[in-house]
């Protein structure tokens, strides 16, 4: 054990009833790359037999200087980097960043663009929750539901591919708009695939939700109280699992979420099983939102998807090749990008893991002074020792899975 660790917590007295059965404490290094965790993180665990006495979580293995890179390019050049934050739901990160920049630019995007962004966000959230629940089953040695989950995730990725041509790192959202509109054939194939996703979710539910082994591993493990959640600034499904209906989409509606009909599911106990149920219900709600988006987009019909603001507008390609002014504007947009007014702004959206915020500082130039991402994975991971102290080592696995720490976002 290295000397810079501080592992000294005592076992709570009610767990301490086995007298002589206690062993000499041992230190176990788990990770950074462990088959039972999805995410690159190292745990230094102090164990008494199989019981966790204390835990030190060491993150940073995927640190690649996101903020430093953003500060040395243009505002546009940040967008592909945000894809690589939470790579399970890349579009949500795009949306968060672009909305924050739009807040500083004080521009509003066209209605069709906002619905497209909601559609893309919910597809992303669906994919993220499918990965989380599927991978959690896999790490509890249940292979079949994992395959159902991943098959459904493939379908959400197909839909994302039809939106923007990329499956994982989408780079779909632009400052002041989206990359392009959807094709007329999108609605039909989307409804087909959504029906298939619903079937797979049903299969998933049949195999997992009432499964005795799964329920035993999930119920009563990783419990956290409401007070601790709020003190640790935990958001997302974990906070909702303790019964706090906090959702940025409802509390501070952005885009067109105030026009959409959906519910915020909450749990009661705040254990892993509640988190699982919250995620499952959120997937159903996402499907509900996607249905409404498709209907609305069909009803709106073709229209502009980009903002008509000279600072962020890209000229029509045909004009770029034939007119001097558009050529110059294209050149300026590519080489320099928008100049964002001087000031600072924070904008938060509800990502799959919780509140994803961007705090931006601009000095009025085309280069950001500061791009801070408020990473829900990082902040939700901090109370992990609190959740597993005194529990069995095996309980660490589902608890960590449902925190859904994504290395790209946690370590930035």
């Amino acid at each position: 054990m290295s000397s810079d660790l501080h592992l000294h917590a005592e076992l709570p007295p009610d767990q301490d009833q086995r007298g002589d059965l206690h062993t000499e404490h041992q230190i176990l290094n788990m990770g950074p790359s462990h088959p039972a965790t999805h995410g690159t993180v190292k745990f230094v665990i102090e164990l008494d037999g199989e019981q966790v006495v204390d835990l030190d979580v060491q993150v940073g293995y995927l640190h690649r200087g996101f903020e430093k890179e953003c500060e040395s390019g243009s505002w546009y050049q940040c967008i592909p980097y945000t894809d690589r934050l939470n790579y399970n739901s890349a579009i949500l990160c795009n949306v968060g960043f672009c909305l924050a920049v739009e807040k500083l630019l004080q521009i509003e995007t066209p209605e069709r663009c906002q619905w497209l962004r909601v559609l893309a966000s919910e597809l992303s959230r669906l994919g993220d929750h499918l990965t989380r629940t599927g991978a959690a089953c896999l790490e509890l040695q249940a292979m079949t539901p994992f395959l159902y989950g991943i098959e459904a995730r493939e379908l959400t990725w197909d839909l994302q591919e039809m939106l923007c041509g990329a499956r994982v790192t989408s780079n779909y959202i632009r400052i002041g708009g989206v990359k392009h509109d959807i094709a007329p054939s999108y609605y039909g194939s989307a409804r087909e695939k959504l029906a298939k996703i619903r079937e797979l979710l049903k299969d998933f539910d049949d195999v997992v939700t009432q499964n005795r082994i799964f329920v035993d591993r999930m119920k009563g493990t990783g419990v956290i109280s409401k007070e601790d959640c709020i003190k640790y600034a935990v958001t997302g499904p974990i906070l909702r699992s303790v019964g706090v209906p906090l959702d940025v989409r409802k509390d501070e509606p952005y885009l067109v979420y105030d026009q959409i009909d959906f519910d915020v599911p909450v749990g009661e106990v705040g254990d892993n099983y509640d988190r699982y149920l919250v995620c499952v219900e959120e997937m159903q709600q996402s499907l509900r939102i996607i249905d409404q988006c498709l209907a609305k987009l069909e009803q709106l019909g073709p229209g502009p998807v980009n903002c008509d603001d000279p600072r962020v507008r890209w000229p029509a390609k045909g004009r770029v090749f034939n007119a001097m002014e558009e050529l110059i504007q294209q050149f300026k947009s590519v080489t320099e990008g928008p100049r964002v007014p001087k000031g600072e702004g924070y904008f938060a959206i509800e990502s799959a893991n919780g509140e994803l915020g961007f705090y931006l500082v601009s000095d009025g130039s085309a280069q950001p002074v500061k791009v801070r991402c408020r990473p829900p994975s990082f902040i939700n991971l901090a109370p992990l020792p609190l959740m597993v102290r005194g529990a069995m080592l095996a309980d660490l696995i589902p608890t960590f899975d449902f925190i859904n720490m994504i290395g790209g976002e946690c370590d930035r």
Partner: protein
Amino acid sequence: MEDFGSVALRRLIEVHGAALQATHANFGDATALVDPARIADVMRFLRDDAECQFDMLTDLTAVDYLGEQPRFEVVYHLYSVPRNKRLRVKARVSEKTPEIATLCPLWPSANWMEREVWDLYGIRFAGHPDLRRILLYKQFEGHPLRKDYPKEKRQPLIGPQN
């Protein structure tokens, strides 16, 4: 000092007017610039006051304004769950003594975020229980998000010691 219609800013002006250095509400975000020596008092007040109730420290970061005096700005984002309100509190710290009081006793969420700011900006948090690097490794030299740390600089990656 103006409160821009924000209850929290009004309460701060009333009770901690002496500790306030500036306020603004640009782009709709209520913001208070606070004397760094008073940060713990002001934050405790914002958490416990019945009209503010900022029970969540959502975000904590810093900005390096190289060339300005004082050089660094520590930025706190507060959120009130019962009132659904946000507030940004900032405090300037100098390059010579980059130190400010820790908020760990008020909100445990400050623990990791303060470690991150120490790691990347080199701002010390007085009274922090465990101020280690968090994203970078122990042997790393310097604080890379400082504006005078060159982006191209490379450092050898040291393997684990144990």
